[in-house]
Structure formats: structure tokens, C-alpha cells
């Protein structure tokens, strides 16, 4: 069937299997060249193998929950949305969550996803107590920081290339309510934005929407959002009565592909200006619900169709802390000169790297998306060069187009990753279109 990631680019012919039990899973993995696919929310080709994509949708059962310490044991195909639905009413929330709840736990481990709290609380891997990994022969290895620690370390952030994650044990965190105390801080330029981030190290959540079409003086102006889980005392009387009850908003479903001309630079520029103005109006503190704070885009089901039939590309890099300001300035200048704006440009301060091949490192990450076109592809190649020249590296869960040499040159860890894959004879057993393209 025709298969792609969430960005709908690249689209490839792939054979997809959805085994229903462990026996069937073993026989599919045994065929080799396999990659596990969760809910297909990585953007590019991380979860596509042309000959053997193994869909984990039937491995979606929760196995145990310990309400004394928040430890959840579940199969890898369980959706994060289901975890929240199940446990938020009794006061438990994911310790780390990406910008969509429609991801699987296995996918979260494989990409070692990060959230708005990375600077303070690290990536998802930190809350994985153990995981069980199936190798090509079908045997299952339990790994943790103490047991088969090396395999654990490569698997968290290993993009599914060390085997198929079948079960995980993850720690949830206790919260007092389903509400977030959000503070919106408009900034005037990049330097100002970074000052705000550095001053907000103690905030649990911090993220910025960045206007990437700002001109010289306003380049890097942002709306910085800080957030804390609201305590009972901070809620209104009505909210206090049922602190975990949030009225469900009706989602919208994107019914068709937008024609590609709708997202031209004028539309993007106008949107960005309006969005910033709106932020100025709403600056200061507000209590918002968890869904709106963490997953603003999830309420538009199929929002990827906004970018038209050709799909869209994500660019996400992280720059080391000492090179961040200079690198970001150059990246923004390049985008602004080209005039291809991004609707959803996000800037975020990261904390330390967690596992061996995990994406985040101490510094700043910039995430942008562009509709697929010759021009945007060329722009992104220039952005790759700029990021690499400042010691930056790239988020594989968002990538569907980076050149192998760019990864090899920018990410010194890739050689060790390849050596490990070769030594463990994993390269025959597990591969994605991405790993083939990048030579991983």
C-alpha cells in the first residue's frame, strides 16, 4: 500500500503487516528488514519499511498499573491519548509528552520524545522503567538502566533500529488537576526571547511560538508560554469541584486537502502577524485546560491536510547552548530572506542529552514546517548546512529528506550507532526507509 508519515512526504509503496499476537509478530520480524510502526505520527519515513512495515496496532493493551507509584505496564501500541483518558481522572499525567497525544508508547521510546519540560525534567526515556525488545529471532529481552543497560541505552532514541519494542513500563506523574497555569510573555527579538527562556529555567513547561518572518529588528520575536500544573488552590470554585473534569471540545476534522496556493507567503505572514497580536492581547497569566495547552493541533483531526496533497516537511534541529544565539540568527535570516514562512515555528530550550542516540542536547531547538516544494527543499538544505556549521544536529522523527552525509558530518554519534548495528547484526533485521537513506 501507499505509505508515508504524518507529513505525507515521502509516499512509498510498502508492505504493511498488522500481526495480532506474538506468534504472528515473530514470523513477520523473522523475515528481516522490519520496522515497527505505531500510529504513524513521525513526520517522514522513520516508520516505513518498503518490504516489511510491522504495524503494532493490535498490541494496544494495558497490563498493570500501580497507583502507589504511578508505574504503568503496557504493550507498545497503546496510545498516549488512552493513557491520559484512563489515568488523568485519578490524578496521573504523562511525565513527558510530545505535541500530539496520538502517538504510541513504543514510538515515544523509539524517538525518545521530548516535551515542553525538557529543560527541567528531561526526555521520555528518563521515565521508562524498563522495556521489552524483540530481536529478529523472536526472543524477548528485558532492558533497563540496570539490566542489559547497553541495549536499553541504544533503544531509547534508537528509532526502532535495535528491535521491536513490545512492552514498556513507564512512570506517570501525579498532578492536582487537569488544568495548567499558563503565562504568555511576548518578546521583541531573539535576544530577548533567550533571556526569557534562561530566566524561566525553574518553570516546569516552557515553549515559544516564533514569528519566523519578522524583519531585521523584530527577528526572533516570540510568544513564550510558561506553564505549571495548577494546584487545587489556583482553580476557580467551579473547577475545584471536579479538578480533573475538562469539558470536551468538539474536534474538527479536516475534510479535504487544501489547494497548495492557500499557504503562500502572504497568508503565512498575515497569520503570523495576527497570531502575535492576539498573543499580545492575551499576555499574562491564565488557567487553561491540559488538552489546549499540550495538544492545540490535536483538536483539528487531519491537520496535515492543510498543506495540500503534496504534503509538508518538518525541519527540527538543536544547537549547542554556546552557539545557539548565533546559529538561530543565521537560520532566521535565511528563512526571512527566502520568504517561505512556516505556520508552526517553535523554539524551545533543551536540557542535557539522555540516552546514547537521543536527539535533545543542552541548547536550543527550532522546529519549522514547510509545504513540500522545490524551493522549500532547497531552503531546508541551506538550513541543514547552517545548523551543522554551528554544531547542531537533527531530529530523526521529523525527517524525511536529509542527506546521509549531513547526518554523518553533523552527528558524531552516528558512527557509533552504525558500528553497534553492524556488530549486533541488526542491519539485516531492522531497517526503515530513513535508516537506508541515512546509511544507519
Amino acid at each position: 500500500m501507499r505509505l508515508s508519515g504524518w507529513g505525507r512526504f515521502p509516499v512509498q509503496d510498502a508492505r504493511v503487516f498488522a500481526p495480532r499476537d506474538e506468534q504472528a509478530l515473530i514470523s513477520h520480524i523473522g523475515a528481516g528488514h522490519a520496522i515497527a510502526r505505531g500510529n504513524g505520527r513521525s513526520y517522514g519515513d522513520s516508520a516505513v519499511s518498503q518490504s516489511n512495515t510491522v504495524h503494532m496496532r493490535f498490541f494496544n493493551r494495558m497490563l498493570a498499573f500501580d497507583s502507589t507509584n504511578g508505574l504503568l505496564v503496557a504493550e507498545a501500541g497503546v496510545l498516549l491519548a488512552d493513557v491520559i483518558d484512563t489515568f488523568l481522572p485519578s490524578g496521573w499525567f504523562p511525565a513527558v509528552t510530545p505535541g500530539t497525544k496520538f502517538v504510541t508508547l513504543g514510538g515515544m521510546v523509539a524517538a525518545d520524545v521530548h516535551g515542553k519540560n525538557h529543560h527541567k525534567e528531561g526526555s521520555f526515556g528518563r521515565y521508562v522503567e524498563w522495556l521489552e525488545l524483540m530481536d529478529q529471532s523472536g526472543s524477548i529481552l528485558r532492558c533497563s538502566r540496570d539490566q542489559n543497560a547497553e541495549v536499553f541505552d541504544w533503544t531509547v532514541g534508537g528509532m526502532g533500529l535495535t528491535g521491536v519494542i513490545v512492552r514498556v513500563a513507564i512512570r506517570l506523574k501525579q498532578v492536582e488537576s487537569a488544568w495548567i497555569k499558563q503565562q504568555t510573555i511576548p518578546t521583541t527579538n531573539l535576544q530577548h526571547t533567550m533571556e526569557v527562556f534562561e530566566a524561566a529555567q525553574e518553570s516546569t513547561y516552557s515553549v515559544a511560538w516564533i514569528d519566523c518572518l519578522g524583519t531585521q529588528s523584530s527577528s526572533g520575536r516570540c510568544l513564550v508560554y510558561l506553564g505549571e500544573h495548577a494546584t487545587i488552590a489556583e482553580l476557580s470554585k467551579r473547577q475545584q469541584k471536579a479538578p480533573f473534569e475538562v469539558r470536551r471540545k468538539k474536534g474538527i476534522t479536516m475534510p479535504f486537502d487544501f489547494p497548495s496556493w492557500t499557504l503562500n507567503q502572504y497568508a503565512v505572514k498575515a497569520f503570523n502577524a495576527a497570531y502575535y497580536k492576539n498573543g499580545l492581547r492575551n499576555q499574562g497569566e491564565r488557567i487553561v485546560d491540559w488538552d489546549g495547552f499540550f495538544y492545540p493541533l490535536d483538536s483539528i483531526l487531519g491537520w496535515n491536510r492543510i498543506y495540500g496533497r503534496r504534503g509538508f516537511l518538518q525541519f527540527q534541529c538543536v544547537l549547542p547552548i554556546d552557539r545557539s544565539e548565533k546559529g538561530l540568527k543565521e537560520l532566521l535570516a535565511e528563512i526571512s530572506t527566502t520568504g517561505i514562512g512556516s505556520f508552526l515555528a517553535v523554539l524551545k530550550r533543551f536540557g542535557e542529552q539522555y540516552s546514547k542516540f537521543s536527539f535533545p542536547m543542552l541548547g536550543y531547538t527550532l522546529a519549522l514546517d514547510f509545504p513540500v516544494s522545490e524551493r522549500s527543499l532547497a531552503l531546508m538544505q541551506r538550513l541543514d548546512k547552517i545548523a551543522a556549521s554551528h554544531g547542531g544536529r537533527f531530529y530523526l522523527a521529523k525527517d524525511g529528506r536529509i542527506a546521509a552525509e549531513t547526518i554523518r558530518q553533523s552527528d558524531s554519534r552516528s558512527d557509533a550507532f552504525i558500528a553497534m548495528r553492524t556488530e549486533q547484526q541488526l542491519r539485516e533485521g531492522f531497517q526503515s526507509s530513513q535508516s537506508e537513506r541515512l546509511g544507519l
Partner: protein
Amino acid sequence: VNNNHVLILGARSDIAKAIAHRFASEGSSIDLAARGSESLLVDKADLEVRYNVEVTLHDFDVLDTQSHASFVETLPVMPTTVVCVVGYMGSQADSEKRPDAAVKVIRTNFEGPASIFLVLASHFEARGSGTLVGISSVAGLRGRASNYIYGSAKAGFSAFLSGLRNRLTGSGVHVVTVLPGFVATRMTEGMDLPSRLTAQPEEVAKAVWTAVDRKRDIIYVRSVWRFIMIIICAIPEKIFKRLSL
């Protein structure tokens, strides 16, 4: 409805699992019955963790009709609702060549479900309450060359449910007939089904929940099937016998 206790017969199927989730999410206790029920331990755990309800497993063989009376008597709690999801399509070609294969299809889809429902009906009638839900099929509304063994067994089951409903009306016991149409399950995996006519198991589960809640008699899952079947049933036999549908 919170104290509802639902017994699901043929609990391994995709439709059965979706129904279990639906009722459990409404707070019902769940009894899962199937052959080799210990292999459903993971599903039991999943339902318990997600919905904080009680789930029990029971060995049940729909073809072993001798055991049905004792199966019902040894249930720890007499359920308030029973859903029979048992279904077996077999291979039409096999069924035509080997009578024993055809008999297995007929017994699994008709004889077995009728037998267990007769036992349950007596208990429910004596108690004066309960709901029996039979998952039948639109294939039972008119025999077609491509699946008439399965279809005729489902036709028998549908007629049985209709008679049972007639018998029990006034006794406090309600009978629901479900005619799902195409459903995306293990049984139809790999078939090229039109997506507008194909329901997801969760849709079937939702329809069953609503039918039990509102005491509906005969339900379709996607309403388009009601019209399709009106047309199919209206075609004169003279013409129908020449069609390949």
C-alpha cells in the same frame, strides 16, 4: 445501568473485544467466554486497568451443546446482558465440497448460539429480566452463491432470535438482533471491502450498547445496509438467480 453484568460469548473476536470495551467503559462487569479462555488474560488485564471493572474468564465451546446447561449454572453471577458474538464463515468452497465443513459452519452460527440462548432464556424468563443480544448477519436475509452456507445459518439464527423475542415479550426479557454488514475484523482481513459500507468494530459496539440501552429489536450498524438489503430482497428470484452478487 452501572450494576450491569455482561457475558460475552465468543470473546476472542474483534467485535467482541470492542463490545467488552464499550460496556466496561460504562461501568459494567465483564465475563469473557471462549475456548481456551486463559489466552484472554491480557485482554482481561487491559479492561481492568482501563475501566476499573471486574472481569472474569470462562471456558466455553459453542459446539459442545451438551455442556451449555452446566456452563450457565456454574457462572458465578447470572449476567444481566448476554451478547453472542460467535461467528464462523469457513470457506464457501470447502463447505460445498465437504458436508462436514458445511455442518461446522451451520452448527457454529446457528445450532450452538440457539442452544446457549435457549438455556439462558429460561433463566432470564424465570428471573423476569435480562437482555439477549445475537450478532447475526445481513447475509442471512437472502442466500447468495458466494456465502449461502454461512448465510443460511445466520438466517436460521435471525429467525430464532425473532421467535425468541416473540416468546419473551411481556416476560421482562428483551432480545436484540444485530445485522452488522461488513465489519473490518480478522474475518474480513485481506478482503477488498468498500470503506463506506464497512464498519469498524467500535461502531458495532456502540450500536449494541445503544440497542441494549434503548431496547431496540433489530438493528443495522451502518444504516446504508438497511437500504441495500431492501433492494436485494426485492429483486425477483427469476432475476436474482442469474446475478452474481
